[in-house]
Structures are given as structure tokens and as C-alpha cells.
């Protein structure tokens, strides 16, 4: 078997919810041993579910994307069945320890001696209260790489402000430039791209620090403020304001300069087609495919500028064509003539998608508490480094025996005591809601 690039790297993972776990997933996918340090005594809301003990009927009563437990049933151990967690926890290992207590802290420090990096995305004061800041850890592990990725950074007035990705999308200006053009901003639902961006760039940042360490022996603290990381992603709006003092508003589904672009209703329930026509060549091809050469000579649509001005009228004409075909028929007909187009795929359609199949993207994994399902695969592939998902999402405390007995050489007696005192376990403590 090929050696994966990060084999031999051990990362202690103190991340929560999405952004941090996305980061450690990417490193883990490519060979790092990622050890989630969790606690059966304290619950991080949203990481393994909104609450540990979910009322069994709640997901069915209020079906929503955050409650898609297998068969809408939380089950005996809902924390091992929560899709948000299951979507990033493949390949990772899970151990439990209560860091707030002296002996728990000591265990973490022992483990730290064997680790190459620590990654976390908590509110800075949480890390300070636990005494697991870089300044504390580096005393034990002088060449440590630590990546901290709080919302607003480790300094400044908002240092300890609490935020999920969706609120950061507000402060960075993303929320303002998306959504329906004819509706109030309070009608914008949540999107979560800030989390995805922070996780992605966090993995990059960790790799850079690890490379420097490998070459020089020098570790370091890396600080990724999730808000700042997302600002470059909004380059057009940010640069237009800086250069021209222009404030972008939402364009809805439209393109800033090209027309037509939009989402068009197709035949059937919830069937939608997206199209982008970038230039006159694509426009001619588009008109040919939809059998409307008359549009080419219509003064309202003859030039790019005219099309941009008359988009509402143009969209109405386009929908006459799309509404009598499925999104796939329409997309394939347009792509065949070089016009950018694609259907809005539903989740299960993407799971069954032929392109995904040809990439061998989804991988079936069997999980003790969740059953057998296909899991989304690797973000990219490398021709000389064949790679695939290795193990199913880690269950809470699943790897305690490995960590305590193999890595830390605890005796059976010591292990039992740590179980009795609520450090080691696979269930949340009775007092955890």
C-alpha cells in the first residue's frame, strides 16, 4: 500500500462543530493520526448533536437537516449517529478525558509528549480556562505546532466573541450579498460557507507549520481568525468598496456582468436548471438549442448589454423551454453545444451521480451504531498516491483502550479507576442533558 503523506503525524484534536473538524478531517484523510479528545462530562452543543439525550420523537416531529439521525431516530447513543459529526469523523480516533480535573489534565499532557500538533477552534477563553494554550503546552512539547482558529482571533475587542460560521458570514459581508433581490435580509436562511472556508485553509496552515517543523525542528503557534480568513473569498465586493466606495447588494441568482444566468423551473416537482451564458458565442448556441433563433435578432437581447437590461423578459422566454423538460434533459442538451448548464441536484441524486461514480467518490462504511451507508469521499485525488476512506466515523471513546493502554501504558487497574471516575467512557454522564 502507498504511504500517505502525513503518516506518522499525530494530531490532538480539540475542535468543535464544523470548521475545526473539517480541518482535521482533511489532514486525517491524508494519513495523519487524528485523535479527538472528548469528554463524557461536558457537552459541546452542536458537535455530536444539539444535546446528548435527544427526545426520541423530536426529529420526526420536526424534521430538519440538523436532525437527520438514521431513520429519524436518535437511538441509544445519538451522539454516534448525528450526521453533522458523521460527515467529518471518518478515519479519526476518539478518546475521552475530563480536562478540567487535575488527573485528566495530566493525561492530556502525557499524550501531548507523543503528539506533533494540537488543533482547536474554540472561544479563546475556553482554551485559557483549561490551560491548554500554546504558551502552556509548549512547556511540555517545545516543538509543538498549534493551530488555533477562533472566530475573531486571539487579540482585539472581539477576541472572546461567540460565533458559528453563519454569524461570521454576516460580519464578513457574505450574508448581505446573497439572497432574493426582492426580499428583506431577515428572510435569508443560513448558509455555512465560512465553516468550509476556515476548515479548508486551516488544514493548509497546519501543513505549512508542520513542514517548517520537519525541516528545522521549530514548532509554532498559528492563529487563523475565521472572519479574516473568509474576507479574501469575498474579493469582488471588498475590492469594489475599497477602490470605488461601492457597496454591493445581493444579485440573487444573477451574474454581475453576464446574462442570462439564473435558476429555471423544469418539468416535475422541484426540478430546477441553472444556466450561465458568458458571451455571444454561448448565446448563439443557447438560442439554437432552445430553438429560438428569433431571440438573436430581438433588439432586447441582441447584445450582452441589452440582455443584461432585459433579464426578466429573457428569463420568462427561457422558462417556456425549460418547464416542459426535466433539468437533466435541458442541461445535457445545452452542455452538448457548449453552453454552461446544470441541474440543481438533490442530495440523493448527488449520491447516485455518474460523475461521482466514475471518480469512485462515495465509500460504503459500516458503523456499529449507525449501520451501513455511503460516505462522501476525498476532496481531491492524487495519481501517485491512491487513497480512500479507511474507517467509519469514530464513536465517542471508541479508542480509549488504544490511547490509554497502548500509548500511555496504563494498567488494567488504572484504566478501571479512570472509568469509575468518569474520564474513560462511551456514554455521557447522567447529569449531561
Amino acid at each position, binding site marked *: 500500500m502507498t504511504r500517505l*503523506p502525513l503518516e506518522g503525524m499525530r494530531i490532538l484534536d480539540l475542535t468543535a462543530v464544523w470548521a475545526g473538524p473539517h480541518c482535521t*478531517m*482533511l489532514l486525517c484523510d491524508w494519513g495523519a493520526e487524528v485523535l479527538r479528545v472528548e469528554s463524557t462530562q461536558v457537552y459541546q452543543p452542536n458537535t455530536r448533536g444539539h444535546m446528548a439525550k435527544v*427526545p426520541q420523537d423530536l426529529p420526526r416531529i420536526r*424534521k430538519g437537516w440538523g436532525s437527520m439521525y438514521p431513520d429519524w431516530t436518535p437511538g441509544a447513543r445519538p451522539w454516534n449517529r448525528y*450526521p453533522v459529526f458523521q460527515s467529518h469523523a471518518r478515519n479519526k480516533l476518539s478518546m475521552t478525558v475530563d480536562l478540567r480535573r487535575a488527573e485528566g489534565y495530566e493525561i492530556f499532557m502525557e499524550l501531548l509528549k507523543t503528539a506533533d500538533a494540537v488543533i482547536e477552534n474554540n472561544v479563546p477563553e475556553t482554551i485559557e480556562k483549561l490551560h491548554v494554550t500554546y504558551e502552556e503546552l509548549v512547556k511540555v512539547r517545545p516543538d509543538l505546532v498549534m493551530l488555533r482558529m477562533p472566530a475573531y482571533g486571539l487579540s482585539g475587542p472581539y477576541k472572546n466573541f*461567540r*460565533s458559528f460560521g453563519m*454569524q461570521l458570514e*454576516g460580519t464578513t459581508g457574505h*450574508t*448581505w450579498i446573497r439572497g432574493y433581490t426582492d426580499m428583506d*435580509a*431577515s*428572510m435569508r*436562511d*443560513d448558509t455555512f460557507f465560512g465553516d*468550509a472556508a476556515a476548515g479548508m*485553509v*486551516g488544514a*493548509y*496552515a497546519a*501543513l*505549512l507549520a508542520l*513542514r*517548517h517543523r520537519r525541516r528545522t525542528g521549530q514548532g509554532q503557534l498559528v*492563529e487563523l481568525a475565521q472572519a479574516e480568513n473568509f*474576507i479574501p*473569498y*469575498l*474579493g469582488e465586493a*471588498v475590492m*469594489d*468598496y*475599497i*477602490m*470605488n466606495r461601492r457597496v454591493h447588494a*445581493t444579485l*440573487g441568482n444573477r*451574474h*454581475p456582468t453576464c446574462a442570462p*444566468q439564473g*435558476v*429555471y423551473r423544469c418539468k416535475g416537482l*422541484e426540478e*430546477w436548471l*441553472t444556466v450561465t451564458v458568458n458571451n455571444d458565442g454561448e448565446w448563439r448556441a443557447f438560442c439554437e438549442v432552445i430553438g429560438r433563433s428569433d431571440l438573436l435578432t430581438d433588439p432586447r437581447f441582441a447584445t450582452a448589454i441589452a440582455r443584461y437590461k432585459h433579464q426578466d423578459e429573457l428569463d420568462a422566454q427561457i422558462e417556456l423551454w425549460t418547464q416542459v423538460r426535466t433539468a437533466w434533459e435541458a442541461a445535457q442538451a445545452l452542455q452538448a453545444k457548449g*453552453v*454552461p448548464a446544470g441541474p*440543481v*441536484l438533490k*442530495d440523493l441524486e448527488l449520491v447516485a451521480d455518474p*460523475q461521482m461514480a466514475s*471518480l469512485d467518490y462515495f465509500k460504503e462504511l459500516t458503523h456499529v451504531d449507525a449501520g451501513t451507508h*455511503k*460516505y462522501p469521499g*476525498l476532496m481531491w*485525488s*492524487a495519481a*501517485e498516491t491512491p487513497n480512500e476512506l479507511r474507517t467509519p466515523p469514530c464513536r465517542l471513546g471508541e479508542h480509549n483502550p488504544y490511547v490509554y493502554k497502548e500509548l500511555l501504558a496504563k494498567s488494567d487497574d488504572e484504566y478501571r479507576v479512570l472509568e469509575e471516575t468518569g474520564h474513560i467512557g462511551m456514554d455521557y454522564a447522567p447529569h449531561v442533558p
Partner: protein
Amino acid sequence: MPPQALEGLRILDVTQLIAGPYATKLLADYGAEVIKIERPGTGDVTRQKGPFLHDEPHPEKSGLFLHLNAGKRGVTLDLKSATGRKLFLQLAKSAEVVVESFAPGTMESFGLGYEALKAVNTRIIVTSISNFGQSGPYRDYKISEIIAYAMGGPMHETGLPEREPMKLGGSVIQFQTGAAAATATAMAVWNAEVNGHGDHLDLSLFRTQASSQDRRTTMLVGAQYTGENGDRRPPGVSTANGIRPCADGYIAIMGASNRFAGVVRMMGQPELLTDPRFDTVVKLSMPDTSEEFDIHYIPFLMQYTKRELFMMAQKNGLPSGPIFTAEDLYTEPHIRERGFWAKMRHPVVGEITQPGRPFIMNATPWRKPEPAPILGQHNAEILGGLGYSARDLSRLHSLGVI
């Protein structure tokens, strides 16, 4: 001066638009030497895309281009010509990485595919960024930001139930693909240095979006767990959760279920917590309860500005954020105080401020880059370094090779 993390790494960048240039920008930001190779005459098509300084279209005045290409050196080279190919191969001998974003098969048609590059440099890393990937039934399909979200992303779940699905703002998927390509490249660099082999990396907008943790992968798991596709939900179904109006705009506060106590504390009405309309988690997750609560909540919010509410919500431990415009963001003191924005001097546009470091490295810090290269700015320096005289270069120029 402290070292940088990617010092000593030479990267040939034959990408354009957003994803490729953002990848190589991230690499340049932390010390890689990036040589941006553009088509003679017109260059990267982003040079023709706005926003332009003072709205004046000019190949050196695109704000998007300036943002994406800071810190790189620029040469022009016609890769279709035999001489252009020869020069590229010469450069590739001394490079660790080539990043390209042509349609699949294009580099091969130039005689510059992975195998050809590997023949001159056995440990070369080629990072390919495409629409749908280097193979498969959609290989030659065209894509755009909205199509990437429609096919790869949770667009079906974004927007209102009675309306059409809604895209994300700007070009975030293209940027994300760039960040993925930078990460994949750094991973392959590690591999080359530790395991001694190069690689050909296959990244696409489609697959990056499908693999992103913006709820996409969660939905792919959840839909299989339940056998049901997600759908679009009206916002504000959960009580006290989401975006609400306030005195001068909008504020997003997360106040659902167990955070509800913080909301009523912020309002100075803690008695609402035991009000029989709002006293269980199940009740709080019902749409009718949300409407009922808004009767109390919105009049409260309307008394304060978004910044005031931001402070009040945070004081009560509520994850929250004001809905800022680009103006609010640019003038935001917290981000200014942390020194995020980078001011540079560009030979054509003059003084220009751009987004600065995406993250802070203590031992191998980000350095403020040189501004984006003007077209062909470093031809003499870089191609001259291959042993071409000024006379050779001027001949290549007249032939349109550079």
C-alpha cells in the same frame, strides 16, 4: 528576517480566473516563489473583469486581479508555440510545482502533460484544477459559480420553500477550490520531500463543493440515514433564531433551544423562560412559537443598532453577528486593529489596500507582498535567467511568444 514556511519552493502558475490564482496566492503568501505565466497580449482573463479602479476598464486596474495575484512574478509565454513549450520545460526543470487550470487534456495537447513534465523533472507536482475533474462523463462540461453550487452543493436546500433555490454570494466556491488546491499542493510537497515522489493532483470545482463542510457533506450523510432529501425551509422557524431586523439594519443571533435563556436575559424579561408558551425545547422548535415570540422580540430589537445588539448578545453568551455590508466590514475597528488590511503601491494604480494575511504564523510570518505583476513585468529577469539575451527576448516578443 524570519524564514517563511514555503521558502525554496518554486511554482509555475499557468492558471487564470479565480480558483488557480487564489491557490498560488496562498502559496506565495507564505514564501513560495510563484511565476505567473500569462498569454502574451491579453494575459489572465481576470484582467478584463471588474471591479476596476474608478470603473475604468484597464488590464492593470482590475481589483479582483490585483487581489488574487499579489506576491507573484509575471511572465508572458505562448504555450502553444514550440519555443514557448521549450521555455516552459526549461522553467519546469527548476520548479517543484506546476499549477494549471486548463480544460482537461489541454496541457497534453501542448506537450506539457504530467508525463511530459515528469520526463524533465522526476519529482514534479502537477496540480490540475478543472470544472468536474480530469476524467468521467462530465469531464468536458462547462461550469460556473452557480452551476458548481447547483450540482455539487446544497443549493436545493438554500432559499425559501415557495421560491427557486438560491446561490451563495460572489464567487466563494471558486475561492474554496483555490484553497483546496493550495492544501493539496502542500500535501504533495510533503509527500515529495518525505516519500520522494511527485504527483498529479486532480481538483475540481464540483468535487471541492461536494466535499465541503458547508452542510453539503452533512446532507449527503443525513439523506442516506433517512432516505429523504433535504428541502428549503423558511428562516426563523426556530424561536429566536436567525436574522432579525433592528434599528439600523439586521442582526443574526442564535437563540434556539438551550440558548433561549440567554435571549430572554438579554431582553431583560427572564420570566418568559417559564411562560407556558416557551417552556420546553419541543415548543420552542415549533414555527407558531417562533411567530408568537417575535411579537415580543422584534420590538425589543428595533430599539437598538446592530452593533449594540452584537455587544448585548455576546454579553449574554449568544453566538451572534451583525449583517455587515462591505463598508461596515472595511471600517470595522476590530479587524483594523489586528492589522488585517495590507496597503501596497502599484506602478499603475498607485496606493492600494487589499485583504492581507489569511492567518498568522508566529515563527514563519506572512510578509506583505509586492503588488500583482503588470503583464510580462518579469520577462527579462526570469527568462533572462534561463540564458536568453535581451536581443533573444526582443525577438521572442516580436514573434508573439512572450
